[in-house]
């Protein structure tokens, strides 16, 4: 019997169903025979025989039961609209819903997701600092210098800053840096300079580069204050903090990004949680750099306290509280530490008062520099 018309006649025969054999899209009006197996019969011809145990449910619109069979072609489908026939089939097919995962499937997804989250968080909190510590010394110096070059040009573009090199000021600056560098036991590969930006800031770049912003010089009252800041930045270089930070922050944002299913790591949430994690590491590095600076100043026979005073002058009083997302320790705490470990000056001043004045005006003669307002992309104002 060959029924081209897809409609079933007005009074459907008992056990009527529609059958698609999975090899052609022809819709066949069939009747079902329930023997020890399910027989699918079109007219006189038996099209297929399905074992009840092999029958599985397939997705269907409401009001229809749609079945497939493990031993039939994968896409062979039997569609039953009649309620009584459907009930009969459901009662006979014991494994009907074996393919659908059900509650246990969801529980497995939820359970392993949480396990993955816990393990990623654990690696970020405990594993990455360890890895970064071990890995940073292994990074070749040439690579680190190259990174520094990139950061260098980006920072100069970002702040629209130039290197100040008015002769007298530069001479004083070199003298100051050299005495600190020698006392810190570092070689001549360290490069340093003053940048013409009004932000009160200083920072160390990977590959041995230290920059001081003119804005910090403007706020400083004597050479010791600046010396301590430079020593602090040299401490970052010595400990290769920026390399370590890069490895740690990069991997942290990558792993957290992975967790939230966004490889590029761009959403606000990722940014938030990354800040929380990385800043706690960074505070540790800052505390170490402070310790380094205190040591260097003592070796030079100069007090460390003025640097703390400069910091406090720059940041203003920071009130107590949970400052967990701050990248730096509180300025008060840093001053307290520097005062506690302070010794009175025993060595000669690092710069003569003339040299100090020259250093303070190192950016003069470049009128476009000092009066520049804070650039739009204002960085963390306390990178010291």
């Amino acid at each position, binding site marked *: 019997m060959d029924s*081209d018309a*897809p*409609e*079933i006649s007005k009074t*459907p025969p008992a056990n009527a169903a*529609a059958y698609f054999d*999975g090899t*052609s*899209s*022809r*819709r066949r009006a069939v009747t079902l025979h329930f023997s020890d197996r399910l027989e699918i019969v079109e007219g006189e011809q038996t099209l297929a025989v399905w074992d009840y145990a092999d029958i599985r*449910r*397939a*997705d*269907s*619109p*409401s*009001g*229809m039961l749609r079945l497939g069979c493990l031993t039939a*072609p994968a*896409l062979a*489908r039997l*569609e039953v*609209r009649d*309620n009584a026939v*459907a*009930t009969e089939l*459901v009662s006979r097919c014991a494994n009907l819903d074996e393919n*659908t*995962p*059900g*509650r246990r499937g*969801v529980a497995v*997804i*939820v359970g392993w*997701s*949480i396990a*993955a*989250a816990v393990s990623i968080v654990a690696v970020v909190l405990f594993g990455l600092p360890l890895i970064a510590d071990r890995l940073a010394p292994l990074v070749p110096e040439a690579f680190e210098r*190259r*990174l520094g*070059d*990139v950061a260098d040009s*980006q920072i*100069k*573009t970002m702040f629209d800053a130039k290197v100040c090199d008015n002769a007298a000021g530069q001479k004083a600056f070199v003298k100051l840096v050299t005495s600190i560098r020698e006392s810190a036991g570092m070689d001549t590969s360290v490069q340093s300079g003053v940048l013409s930006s009004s932000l009160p800031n200083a920072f160390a770049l990977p590959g041995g580069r230290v920059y001081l912003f003119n804005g910090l010089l403007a706020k400083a009252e004597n050479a010791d204050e600046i010396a301590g800041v430079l020593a602090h930045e040299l401490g970052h270089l010595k400990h290769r903090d920026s390399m370590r930070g890069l490895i740690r922050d990069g991997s942290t944002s990558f792993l957290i990004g992975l*967790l939230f*299913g966004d*490889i*590029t790591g761009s959403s*606000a*949430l990722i940014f938030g*949680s990354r800040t929380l994690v990385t800043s706690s590491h960074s505070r540790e590095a800052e505390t170490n750099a402070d310790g380094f600076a205190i040591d260097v100043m003592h070796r030079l026979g100069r007090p460390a306290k003025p640097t703390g005073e400069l910091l406090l002058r720059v940041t203003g009083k*920071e*009130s107590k*509280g949970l*400052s*967990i*997302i*701050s990248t730096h320790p509180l300025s008060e705490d840093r001053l307290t530490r520097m005062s506690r470990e302070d010794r009175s000056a025993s060595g000669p001043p690092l710069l003569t008062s003339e040299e100090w004045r020259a250093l303070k005006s190192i950016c003069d003669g470049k009128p476009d520099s000092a009066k520049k307002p804070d650039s739009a992309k204002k960085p963390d104002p306390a990178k010291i």
Partner: protein
Amino acid sequence: MNEMSWPPQVPPPPPSSVPPPMPVAFSGKRGEFFELAKRGAALELVTLGFYRFWLLTDIRRHLWSNTLVDGDAAEYTGRGKELLIGFLVALAILVPIYLGYFLIGLEAEHYQAFASIPLIAFFYLFGQFAIFRARRYRMTRTVWRGVRFWMTGSGWIYALQASLWGLLMILTLGLVLPWRAAALERYKMRHSHYGDLQGSFEGRGWEFFKRGWWLWLLTPIALYIIPIAPFVYAGYKAIEWRWWLSGVRFGGVRLESSLPKSALIGLYWKVIGWMTLLGLVFAVYLALCAVLVASMSGEGLTEFFKTPELMRSIPLLVLLGLGYLVFALALNVVIRVYLTRDLWVIVLGSVNISGIEAAANVAARGDLANALGEGFADGLDVGGF
């Protein structure tokens, strides 16, 4: 239909002999879809987003299996696990690429600051590849009358074409968009099949342009006068849907759509309304959290708000993060209900099919494609549904 909420019993009553002979119909209930989206969002929250593979699958299963063409419902045979595997494979490939991107960028920056930006073009190419392969995956998981759709063609050739057209788009300020869409669609449809019926695309760029050029002129205005932007976008989508559907052919089967230009405007405004409402609720929640934390810190309210400590207190941050997550997921539910389900229903309602007899006896052919493209699309944030 959601696999978990489907009771393993007999389907509900209305088994009235035969569905009415209309070419395309949708039988899904809105409440059911809402339940599905709501439950999926909750599970996404608990699983930190991993559930998205299964939610996406459930959404497609619901939409596909309730779409009736010539009385017979389609079926989506893809599974969440396939998407997960596709994502993992894409991850394995994308991670070294990101690393290479980083290194190349480093080299480029060495010569000039920010010189690495053009490399983004490479990711555009990759995104187009992902779009093609994701479509192939979806097609091969689409089954109707026991026969699957399938696709041939090369993802890379498509990506190259799309990128060159993309370049032209930039040069002409978007004016070639209709011709770009037509050319890309021709490539996709030419390589699409239903059993042994080959697909093709008859839509012409010129027709698309004729219907939508005024939107191109309105776009710069819409960028200034934001309130008209939803009208422009909804109009554009409606024109695009209608033009696209009216061009789709499978052998002798021809689709036609009569979607009016204004058909989708209501949807977009409803979404904007819900966004505003949810945003307000979120803002009130933020204020309440701040006041609560401030009052617990013991300091005076005004003092607390003056200090930077406001942004540093952990309880506040945790409350904010949680609120933000719930806000984002609620928004997701709204977008899925309106812009996925309702849009699907409206667009389907506009479709008429002629020559459906050609699909009455089609021989099954074609193989399954893997979900790699879906994984890339997920990793690069490109993909549709």
